[in-house]
């Protein structure tokens, strides 16, 4: 059924269609609307057979999800930014124990400086935690990915994060096709745990493992993620057969066939990039885009296949590995081992900085002409940066950087 609703609402309805049995969450922007809606659905009986547990922190949220999942319940939670950091230890435990929890990350920057807006720093901080990480381009894909996430998580007994851009998607009201319960039931069988705390057949979960077997347990976590590389496209195909649309998968090439320049990105910015690609194609420039849908596991072979014929690649990413540059770029470069092409990294949209078509046109034109630096910060205010550096050269007690920049730019409190 077609609906014009907020992204958060769409995800909440999709999660409800997956019939979770335990939802535990702690509010944090921009994730809050999702669990608010689920809390209400639980209360009104719209989501039967589900217990909504209010917890005192994100750490408790993930701990409760772990307990619920180990007891055989389909468990869901959502968080963002510092919330994800606060639950970090439990996040690693969930994947280490192999518990198929699904969690929405409403992607948001990490402080300091405190910032509620979108970038991918939070998910990236957990990129090696052992969870599967899927990235949504639109609200339609966000809701579809949640349905696929439960199927995938429960099939291989690993937790899955569905990452969607905070505010840009979570707070956008757009058209979505909401599936029926019958469709979801046909795609997602009842949860059949591979391990469960059952008094009738007692087991313990969470053994201490010493040097004699730790490597093997960790290797098996890796092997399971590699299995997911096969299952993700398989489930996406099955999803298409039931729901009638392409959603998810490992990668999505857009006009890459004959492209000399290919832009690689994740999340909602792909829409803007595709618009720019169309406009540049209209000018006769052979450019394409490659959307990474599954960041963990990272589809090295598919990325290589999509990119290896190009002359250059621009990895546009909403995160920064301070001290080296790109994060997604490193994985893309790994996929391109022994392939000779120019690879550029562009850091963009940190802390909610809008990524505009105008700036992308300039960036891609520079890349296409091979006049781009290896590492670019899109729309960086170089003068503001220089002023701070100069002040630090001149004055020993130069003061806090964030406050100084705001003062230099004349920003007091909120800006439009």
């Amino acid at each position, binding site marked *: 059924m*077609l609906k*014009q609703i*907020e992204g958060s609402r769409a995800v909440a309805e999709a999660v409800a269609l997956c019939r979770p049995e335990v939802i535990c969450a702690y509010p944090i922007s*921009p994730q809050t609307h999702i669990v608010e809606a689920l809390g209400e659905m639980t209360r009104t009986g719209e989501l039967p057979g589900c217990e909504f547990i209010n917890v005192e922190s994100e750490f408790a949220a993930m701990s409760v999800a772990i307990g619920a999942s180990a007891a055989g319940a389909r468990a869901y939670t959502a968080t963002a930014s510092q919330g994800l950091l606060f639950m970090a230890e439990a996040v690693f435990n969930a994947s280490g124990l192999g518990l198929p929890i699904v969690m929405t990350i409403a992607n948001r920057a990490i402080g300091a400086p405190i910032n*509620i*807006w979108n970038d991918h720093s939070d998910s990236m901080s957990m990129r090696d935690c052992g969870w599967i990480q899927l990235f949504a381009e639109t609200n339609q894909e966000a809701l579809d990915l949640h349905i696929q996430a439960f199927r995938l998580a429960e099939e291989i007994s690993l937790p899955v994060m569905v990452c969607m851009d905070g*505010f*840009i998607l979570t*707070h*956008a*009201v*757009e*058209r979505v096709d909401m599936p029926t319960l019958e469709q979801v039931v046909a795609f997602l069988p009842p949860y059949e745990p591979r391990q469960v705390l059952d008094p009738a057949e007692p087991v313990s979960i969470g053994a201490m493992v010493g040097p004699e077997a730790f490597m093997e347990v960790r290797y098996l976590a890796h092997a399971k993620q590699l299995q997911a590389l096969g299952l993700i496209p398989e489930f996406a195909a099955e999803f298409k057969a039931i729901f009638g649309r392409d959603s998810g998968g490992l990668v999505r090439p857009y006009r890459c066939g004959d492209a000399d320049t290919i832009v690689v990105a994740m999340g*909602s*910015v*792909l*829409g*803007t990039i*595709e*618009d720019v690609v169309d406009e540049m194609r209209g000018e006769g420039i052979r450019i394409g885009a490659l959307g990474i849908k599954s960041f963990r596991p990272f589809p090295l072979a598919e990325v290589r296949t999509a990119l290896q014929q190009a002359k250059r690649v621009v990895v546009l990413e909403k995160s920064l590995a301070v001290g080296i540059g790109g994060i997604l770029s490193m994985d893309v470069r790994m996929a391109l081992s022994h392939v000779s092409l120019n690879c550029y990294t562009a850091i963009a949209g940190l802390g*909610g900085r*809008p*990524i*505009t*078509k105008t700036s992308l046109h300039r960036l891609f034109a520079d890349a296409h002409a091979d006049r781009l630096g290896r590492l670019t910060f899109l729309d960086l205010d170089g003068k503001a940066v220089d002023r701070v550096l100069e002040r630090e050269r001149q004055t020993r007690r130069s003061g806090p950087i964030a406050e100084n920049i705001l003062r230099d730019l004349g920003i007091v*409190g*909120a*800006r*439009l």
Partner: protein
Amino acid sequence: MFQVRIHGRGGQGVVSAAELLAVAAFREGRHAQAFPSFGSERTGAPVVAFCRIDDREIRLREPVARPDALIIQDSTLLHQVDLFSGVPPAAYILINSTRSFDELGLGEFVMGLDPRRLCTVSATDLAMKHVGRAVPNVPLLAGFAAISGLLHLESVIAAIREKFPARIAESNILAAAEAYDAVMKKLAGELHA
């Protein structure tokens, strides 16, 4: 693609206005994308929301820098915020005010613009009269439907019914209808002038 930018203050229903506009357009079978600018979430602070309407899927995610229509829910922002940034000469401009563009000190600014695309609506008064709260968003949307002809009033009314509980919806619909008529009358006056 048609792009709308709505300015107001926290508590005036700016974000809801963009959402209602998107729902109304959706009801007419069009694609629409509404999103707020997520500034500080405080009552009274300047807030901006956007809505795009198109006949095909909207992929673009940047804020609206060059709006085809500008809706100003609070005229006190005129002296605080660069409301007209990127507004092209052909844009529709709708301001919540009992005063005219001249009286608002905008006479010079609008000189040369198409007067049939400029309108002020006493939306707060209409909201107080019908809804009992200073929420000018719905009357302004109805005014927008009237001045732009982009949407039918019926679609705006259907969106209001979808968004609000029955009692609040009905009072908002009365405010919307009166605003729509007021703008249509002003436009008719403009045609005869």
